[in-house]
Protein backbone atom coordinates (compact mmCIF):
# COMPACT_ATOMS: atom_id res chain seq x y z
CA UNK A 1 0.00 0.00 0.00
CA UNK A 2 1.35 3.38 -1.01
CA UNK A 3 0.22 5.54 1.92
CA UNK A 4 0.77 8.84 0.12
CA UNK A 5 -1.31 7.76 -2.87
CA UNK A 6 -4.06 6.51 -0.56
CA UNK A 7 -4.05 9.81 1.37
CA UNK A 8 -4.75 11.63 -1.89
CA UNK A 9 -7.46 9.12 -2.78
CA UNK A 10 -9.15 9.69 0.59
CA UNK A 11 -9.01 13.45 0.01
CA UNK A 12 -10.63 12.94 -3.39
CA UNK A 13 -13.36 10.69 -1.98
CA UNK A 14 -14.16 12.72 1.14
CA UNK A 15 -14.01 16.29 -0.17
CA UNK A 16 -17.40 16.24 -1.99
CA UNK A 17 -19.08 14.46 0.95
CA UNK A 18 -17.82 17.03 3.45
CA UNK A 19 -18.77 19.83 1.07
CA UNK A 20 -22.39 18.70 0.85
CA UNK A 21 -22.52 18.50 4.65
CA UNK A 22 -21.23 22.08 5.01
CA UNK A 23 -17.68 21.15 5.98
CA UNK A 24 -14.20 21.40 4.44
CA UNK A 25 -10.75 20.00 5.21
CA UNK A 26 -9.02 21.88 8.00
CA UNK A 27 -6.98 24.75 6.57
CA UNK A 28 -4.14 23.69 8.90
CA UNK A 29 -2.45 21.61 6.23
CA UNK A 30 -0.02 19.96 8.65
CA UNK A 31 -2.94 18.61 10.73
CA UNK A 32 -4.90 17.44 7.66
CA UNK A 33 -1.82 15.66 6.37
CA UNK A 34 -1.16 13.94 9.71
CA UNK A 35 -4.77 12.82 10.14
CA UNK A 36 -5.11 11.53 6.58
CA UNK A 37 -1.87 9.64 6.96
CA UNK A 38 -3.14 7.97 10.15
CA UNK A 39 -6.45 7.11 8.43
CA UNK A 40 -4.60 5.60 5.49
CA UNK A 41 -2.49 3.55 7.93
CA UNK A 42 -5.58 2.39 9.84
CA UNK A 43 -7.24 1.49 6.53
CA UNK A 44 -4.13 -0.46 5.46
CA UNK A 45 -4.36 -2.41 8.72
CA UNK A 46 -8.12 -2.92 9.07
CA UNK A 47 -9.51 -2.27 5.57
CA UNK A 48 -11.56 0.66 6.89
CA UNK A 49 -10.55 4.34 7.29
CA UNK A 50 -11.68 4.80 10.87
CA UNK A 51 -11.39 8.10 12.75
CA UNK A 52 -7.87 8.22 14.25
CA UNK A 53 -9.20 9.77 17.48
CA UNK A 54 -12.06 7.40 18.33
CA UNK A 55 -11.67 3.92 19.73
CA UNK A 56 -13.07 0.86 18.06
CA UNK A 57 -14.79 -1.82 20.10
CA UNK A 58 -16.21 -5.23 19.21
CA UNK A 59 -19.57 -3.61 18.33
CA UNK A 60 -19.80 -3.22 14.52
CA UNK A 61 -22.74 -0.81 14.64
CA UNK A 62 -20.77 1.49 16.97
CA UNK A 63 -17.60 1.16 14.89
CA UNK A 64 -19.40 2.09 11.67
CA UNK A 65 -20.31 5.44 13.24
CA UNK A 66 -16.62 6.33 13.36
CA UNK A 67 -15.69 5.61 9.77
CA UNK A 68 -14.48 8.81 8.13
CA UNK A 69 -16.21 11.11 7.33
CA UNK A 70 -18.29 10.37 10.44
CA UNK A 71 -20.04 13.77 10.42
CA UNK A 72 -23.53 12.34 9.61
CA UNK A 73 -23.51 10.23 12.76
CA UNK A 74 -22.44 13.02 15.13
CA UNK A 75 -24.04 16.01 13.46
CA UNK A 76 -25.31 17.97 16.47
CA UNK A 77 -22.05 17.47 18.34
CA UNK A 78 -19.82 18.49 15.42
CA UNK A 79 -22.03 21.39 14.38
CA UNK A 80 -21.71 22.70 17.95
CA UNK A 81 -17.90 22.32 17.88
CA UNK A 82 -17.70 23.66 14.29
CA UNK A 83 -15.46 20.71 13.46
CA UNK A 84 -15.35 16.94 13.65
CA UNK A 85 -13.77 15.25 16.65
CA UNK A 86 -10.37 14.53 15.08
CA UNK A 87 -10.26 17.95 13.42
CA UNK A 88 -9.87 16.75 9.83
CA UNK A 89 -12.99 18.68 8.86
CA UNK A 90 -14.15 22.11 9.97
CA UNK A 91 -17.27 24.07 9.13
CA UNK A 92 -16.90 25.98 5.86
CA UNK A 93 -16.95 29.32 7.67
CA UNK A 94 -14.01 28.43 9.97
CA UNK A 95 -10.75 30.18 9.08
CA UNK A 96 -8.76 29.64 12.28
CA UNK A 97 -9.39 26.17 13.75
CA UNK A 98 -6.93 26.84 16.59
CA UNK A 99 -9.59 29.08 18.13
CA UNK A 100 -12.05 26.20 18.34
CA UNK A 101 -12.47 24.08 21.45
CA UNK A 102 -12.69 20.32 21.56
CA UNK A 103 -15.90 19.77 23.49
CA UNK A 104 -17.08 16.31 24.59
CA UNK A 105 -20.38 15.10 23.22
CA UNK A 106 -21.91 15.11 26.71
CA UNK A 107 -21.49 18.92 26.82
CA UNK A 108 -23.40 19.43 23.60
CA UNK A 109 -26.52 17.55 24.57
CA UNK A 110 -25.39 14.22 23.21
CA UNK A 111 -24.62 10.92 24.87
CA UNK A 112 -23.15 10.78 28.33
CA UNK A 113 -23.34 13.39 31.03
CA UNK A 114 -21.51 14.71 34.02
CA UNK A 115 -18.03 15.06 32.57
CA UNK A 116 -15.95 18.05 33.77
Amino acid at each position, binding site marked *: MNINARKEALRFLFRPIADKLGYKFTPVEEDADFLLE*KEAEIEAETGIPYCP*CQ*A*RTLDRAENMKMVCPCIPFHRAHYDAMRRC*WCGLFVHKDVTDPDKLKQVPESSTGGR*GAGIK
Partner: protein
Amino acid sequence: MKKITIYALSTCLWCRKSKKYFEEKNVPFEAIDYDKQDPEKQKAMMAEMRAAGCTGSFPFIKIGGACVQGYDPEEFEKHLK
Protein backbone atom coordinates in the same frame (compact mmCIF):
# COMPACT_ATOMS: atom_id res chain seq x y z
CA MET B 1 0.94 16.85 43.02
CA LYS B 2 -2.12 15.34 41.34
CA LYS B 3 -1.66 12.07 39.49
CA ILE B 4 -2.25 12.48 35.76
CA THR B 5 -3.12 9.66 33.40
CA ILE B 6 -3.73 10.17 29.69
CA TYR B 7 -5.75 7.55 27.85
CA ALA B 8 -4.75 8.05 24.22
CA LEU B 9 -4.73 6.59 20.75
CA SER B 10 -1.35 6.41 19.02
CA THR B 11 -3.02 7.80 15.86
CA CYS B 12 -4.71 10.78 17.50
CA LEU B 13 -3.57 14.36 16.92
CA TRP B 14 -5.23 15.72 20.08
CA CYS B 15 -3.69 13.01 22.22
CA ARG B 16 -0.28 14.15 20.99
CA LYS B 17 -1.13 17.77 21.71
CA SER B 18 -2.30 16.82 25.20
CA LYS B 19 0.91 14.94 25.97
CA LYS B 20 2.91 17.88 24.66
CA TYR B 21 0.95 20.27 26.87
CA PHE B 22 1.91 18.42 30.05
CA GLU B 23 5.50 17.87 28.87
CA GLU B 24 5.96 21.58 28.24
CA LYS B 25 4.61 22.36 31.70
CA ASN B 26 6.99 19.78 33.17
CA VAL B 27 4.03 18.02 34.74
CA PRO B 28 4.68 14.27 35.00
CA PHE B 29 2.00 11.98 33.58
CA GLU B 30 1.39 8.41 32.59
CA ALA B 31 0.14 7.82 29.04
CA ILE B 32 -1.60 4.63 27.94
CA ASP B 33 -2.31 4.08 24.24
CA TYR B 34 -5.65 2.27 24.01
CA ASP B 35 -4.87 0.86 20.57
CA LYS B 36 -1.67 -0.77 21.87
CA GLN B 37 -3.40 -2.66 24.69
CA ASP B 38 -4.79 -6.19 24.71
CA PRO B 39 -8.59 -6.60 24.37
CA GLU B 40 -9.13 -7.11 28.12
CA LYS B 41 -7.33 -3.90 29.01
CA GLN B 42 -9.18 -2.06 26.24
CA LYS B 43 -12.48 -3.27 27.63
CA ALA B 44 -11.56 -2.04 31.10
CA MET B 45 -10.41 1.36 29.76
CA MET B 46 -13.61 1.79 27.75
CA ALA B 47 -15.75 0.80 30.73
CA GLU B 48 -13.98 3.39 32.86
CA MET B 49 -14.47 6.11 30.25
CA ARG B 50 -18.15 5.29 29.83
CA ALA B 51 -18.68 5.16 33.59
CA ALA B 52 -17.38 8.74 33.66
CA GLY B 53 -20.10 9.73 31.18
CA CYS B 54 -17.77 9.79 28.17
CA THR B 55 -17.86 8.22 24.74
CA GLY B 56 -14.96 6.37 23.11
CA SER B 57 -13.42 9.61 21.89
CA PHE B 58 -9.83 10.33 22.83
CA PRO B 59 -7.94 11.77 24.63
CA PHE B 60 -9.41 11.00 28.05
CA ILE B 61 -7.36 12.59 30.79
CA LYS B 62 -7.54 11.92 34.51
CA ILE B 63 -6.24 14.74 36.68
CA GLY B 64 -6.50 13.73 40.32
CA GLY B 65 -10.15 12.78 40.82
CA ALA B 66 -11.39 14.73 37.80
CA CYS B 67 -11.44 13.76 34.15
CA VAL B 68 -11.45 15.69 30.89
CA GLN B 69 -12.39 14.36 27.48
CA GLY B 70 -10.65 16.13 24.62
CA TYR B 71 -7.75 18.55 24.32
CA ASP B 72 -8.80 21.49 26.46
CA PRO B 73 -5.92 23.48 28.03
CA GLU B 74 -8.34 25.67 30.03
CA GLU B 75 -9.84 22.59 31.68
CA PHE B 76 -6.39 21.08 32.25
CA GLU B 77 -5.31 24.29 33.94
CA LYS B 78 -8.41 24.37 36.13
CA HIS B 79 -7.93 20.84 37.39
CA LEU B 80 -4.19 21.17 37.89
CA LYS B 81 -4.71 23.92 40.50
